[in-house]
């Protein structure tokens, strides 16, 4: 039975010396992430046995993946393996799911899905190739994590199998990308995937290779060596001359009374009563040119720091502020500063640190796209929706722009490819799906665009002059927060991702949506549902009627 738990105690920041569940070690061009989950989870009521995980574990995993990119650019390949004997990982902890609220389950799945995608992003764009060494059984989420790696090797000991037992055991789905990656990424034949996804005990040995579930098997006596060789091969293109930076803690100031957060460049002002928050990013004045070694800027560099803060604020919004339904996005600062920064970054995008920062900004924006809150961009006096920050406006569900001298937006090359959405398109391409030529036209334009022109170009939802502005915005806010939060979540998720499907959009739009539906259905969570009764003395009873 679900029970209450203070979600605000969850912190999304950690560091290797604080890890309780995984061990990160770097050895030249290769790194290892060893899974050794401590039994105590985020909250009481369950134990993380057999390397089963909860959000706390995934926060460490996400931190390790992120730190490897920024702190160890010299690493070319990463092995994920287990410290336990005979068990790689048994997936998300079922008792944790049973205790969790619906919102927690949904946000947990979303976060773990994002982490898996970040692993793939690192393999694809950062030259850090992930390899999974399954030295024991990998079931459910314990197999979905390896599926996010480039290669999977399984020990051939006649015992260890990979499996997705969610359907047969729990009456839910392998929702951390499992079903999607099976057919979309690993391209397992649909009928074999059907058999595999209903076979609780999974598949081991040669057949796992034949079916494409793993890339190789090795007997126990050779397993560690073979995987290690493969890891070293995969790391061949690593550049040992690169020196990483160190990611410090963000330590925002929390106003205990209002719940508002103040970071260095970002603030989140919360109005719990009105269920509205204002997320503001301020560009500091007097940014200097990029030094010849960009890495010298370290974690203090505005571009990185501001987006780390934004990322943390978004995660806290999801978990700590469930009542906030609408987020107003504001930016402040000098447009010229942003334009120079973007230009410099574009100029130096082959530098590993610039590249990583741009990739990270992309991920943070995607995190916003996938956040179940309404977002309104508010463009008024002093706003700085310029270049890469203009992307924040484009990520919003609506754009409100004040008609006034000096209020303007401006885009640049970064809006035409640096920050693709999950559908593989830019936000401008997605916005103007009906008219690709219009996007082409925008890309030839430069300079500040005032409210009238922005309106004409289709970049503004509502504009108002100073007489109407306050009422317009106030009414829009009040109206929005009065609507059903569930229908808004569904509506926004449908409207945000026009255009082609990708594996990523299928994971969030199809797999997660079905999972979240199942998570509400009596066959899973009713008193006789399979998830409710997992590990209980009684057997589940299904309503066998199909919808």
């Amino acid at each position, binding site marked *: 039975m679900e029970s209450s738990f203070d979600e605000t105690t969850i912190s999304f920041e950690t560091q290797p010396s604080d890890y309780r569940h995984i061990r990160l070690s770097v050895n030249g061009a290769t790194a290892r992430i060893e899974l050794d989950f401590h039994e105590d989870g985020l909250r009481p009521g369950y134990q993380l046995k057999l390397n089963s995980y909860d959000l706390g574990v995934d926060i460490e995993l996400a931190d390790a993946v992120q730190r490897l990119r920024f702190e160890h650019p010299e690493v070319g390949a990463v092995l994920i393996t287990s410290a336990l004997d005979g068990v790689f990982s048994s997936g998300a902890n079922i008792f944790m799911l049973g205790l969790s609220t619906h919102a927690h389950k949904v946000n947990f799945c979303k976060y773990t899905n994002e982490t898996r995608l970040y692993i793939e992003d690192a393999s694809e764009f950062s030259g850090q190739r992930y390899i999974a060494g399954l030295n024991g059984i990998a079931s459910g989420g314990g197999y979905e994590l390896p599926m996010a790696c480039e290669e999977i090797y399984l020990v*051939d*000991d*006649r*015992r260890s199998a990979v499996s997705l037992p969610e359907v*047969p055991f729990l009456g839910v789905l392998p929702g951390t990308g499992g079903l999607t990656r099976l057919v979309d990424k690993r391209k397992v034949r649909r009928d074999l995937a059907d058999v595999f996804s209903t*076979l*609780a*005990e999974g598949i081991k040995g040669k057949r796992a290779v034949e079916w494409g579930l793993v890339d190789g098997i090795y*007997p*126990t*006596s050779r397993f560690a060596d073979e995987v290690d060789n493969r890891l070293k091969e995969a790391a061949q293109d690593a550049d040992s001359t690169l020196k990483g930076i160190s990611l410090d803690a963000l330590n925002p100031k929390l106003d205990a009374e209002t719940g508002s957060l103040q970071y260095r460049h970002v603030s989140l002002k919360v109005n719990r009563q009105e269920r509205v928050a204002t997320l503001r990013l301020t560009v500091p004045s007097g940014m200097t040119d990029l030094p010849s070694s960009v890495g010298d800027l370290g974690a203090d560099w505005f571009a990185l720091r501001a987006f780390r803060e934004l990322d943390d604020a978004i995660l806290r919004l999801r978990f700590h502020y469930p009542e906030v339904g609408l987020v107003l996005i504001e930016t402040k600062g000098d447009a010229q500063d942003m334009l120079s920064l973007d230009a410099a970054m574009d100029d130096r995008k082959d530098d590993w640190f610039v590249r990583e920062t741009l990739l990270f900004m992309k991920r943070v924006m995607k995190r916003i796209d996938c956040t179940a809150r309404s977002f309104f961009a508010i463009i008024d006096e002093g706003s700085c929706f310029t270049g890469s920050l203009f992307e924040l406006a484009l990520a919003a569900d609506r754009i409100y722009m004040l008609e006034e001298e000096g209020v303007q937006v401006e885009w640049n090359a970064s809006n035409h490819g640096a920050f693709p959405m999950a559908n593989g398109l830019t936000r401008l391409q997605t916005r103007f799906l009906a008219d690709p030529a219009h996007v082409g036209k925008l890309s030839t334009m430069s300079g500040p665009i005032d409210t009238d022109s922005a309106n004409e170009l289709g970049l503004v939802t509502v504009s108002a002059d100073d007489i109407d502005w306050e009422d317009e915005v106030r009414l829009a806010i009040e109206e929005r927060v009065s609507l059903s939060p569930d229908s808004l979540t569904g509506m926004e998720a449908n409207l945000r991702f026009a255009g082609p499907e990708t594996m990523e959009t299928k994971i969030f739009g199809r797999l997660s949506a079905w999972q979240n539906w199942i998570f509400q259905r009596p066959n899973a969570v009713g008193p006789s549902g399979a998830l409710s009764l*997992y*590990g*209980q*003395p*009684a*057997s589940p009873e299904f309503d066998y009627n199909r919808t």
Partner: protein
Amino acid sequence: MAISSDIIPNNVDLDSNRKLQKALVAWQPRFLEWWNDMGPRGYQQDMVYLRTAVSVESSGWAHYDYVRMPEYRWGIFLTPNDPNRTIGFGDQMGKPAWQQVPGEYRKELRRLIVTQCDTEPASVEQQRLLGDTAPSLYDMRNLFQVNVEEGRHLWAMVHLLHEYFGRDGREEAEDMLMRRSGDVDSPRILEAFNKPIDDWLAFFCFTMFTDRDGKFQLGALAESAFDPLSRATRFMLTEEAHHLFVGDTGIGRVVRRTIELMAQREDRDVTQLGGIPLTLLQKYINEWYSASMDLFGSEDSSNSATYFSAGLKGRFGETNGKTYEDHVALETYRDLKWMEEGRLTNHEIPMRRAMNLELADSYRKDCSSALNRWNKFLEEAGLADRLYLPELSFNRKVGVFSEHDYDVSGNPVAHNDFASGCVEWLPSEADKAYVKSLMVPCLELGKFANWIAPPRKGIQSNPIEFPYVQFHDKQTTEA
């Protein structure tokens, strides 16, 4: 090779069962290969006075004769079918027992059968070198009897895999012959079956304690709603009884011999006379009892609840009409105390989750009666020493007690205290080396090694002085 009832005694209508024939044509020759590779080493050509089951009637399941082990007629026997049998417990109590595997429980049944099945060849492998140090012909014969019958139990379980689990079952059956006890690449499933049993005291402890776990597992499966499993395990239980007898009387004979030797020395130090001291025997008991308790699985187990509610695995004596009244077990709890956050805390385990514990309780009672018999010997000899069973929580690697240390009386102890206490509780390397030093073969007709007393009587009304094994290459010395 043709597969027929001539070479495989059975009551499963093998001659007209094409499915079974197809499976066995491939499997039977591989089984013989496995037996020759991994069965008792060095005695395959000798004539051993063995019991063979040739039918399930009381006249047929214990047929005694000399046979070379590779020519042993491993058969497939199920206790005769009761067409009216109903499910005796769980959520489907009262419905007819299943004659086929229900798709719904395929995975659980497969897992139960595969796990049980794997222990059978494993123990043969673990014991394959023991023949060389047999304390007597009588004991050697008993060892081989146990070995061939474990082989038959493999057949019994493999029959279920072949007959009821299709291609998966055939693959699992093949894996039974591929895994090897202690092999780094292809070990047996349960860890306890991966270390060699290389002295006879360990062998007696194995047959006394570990095979007795087998008895209770088989007894629980004999209650299964899956009728073929129930019938197969019920017949296996008749054979298992002899294995337990070997262990029970084997240790009893060690006790009796030790009593004799103690009487010969004022300081009672039987090591001076090549005997096994009671303290050392107690350490072996502690080790084997606690390792065997681990085989029951966790005291609080969701699997056990699933097995019980589905009717796959009951308790020992579930439907004998005497032991249990409530066969649904949804309303009751078991209390159990274990260490949690530094304190001995009581836990209420819903009965269905506590089925492993229930089974372990029945097991403990059964073990206690053997202990009582051995202690009777001590009592009769006027000795104050007594052997005991360690508490449930002692030295556990599996289950709710595995995360803290407990002494033999079940008191929680600090890890350091446990480590130092082990000198007293568990056999050290030196203890094992001492036992091994006593293991010299004694193949004289009717003679026994110095550390063990003769049995009260021979096998099948034969005298103790009987050539239970006839060697093809060495002479059994006449007494």
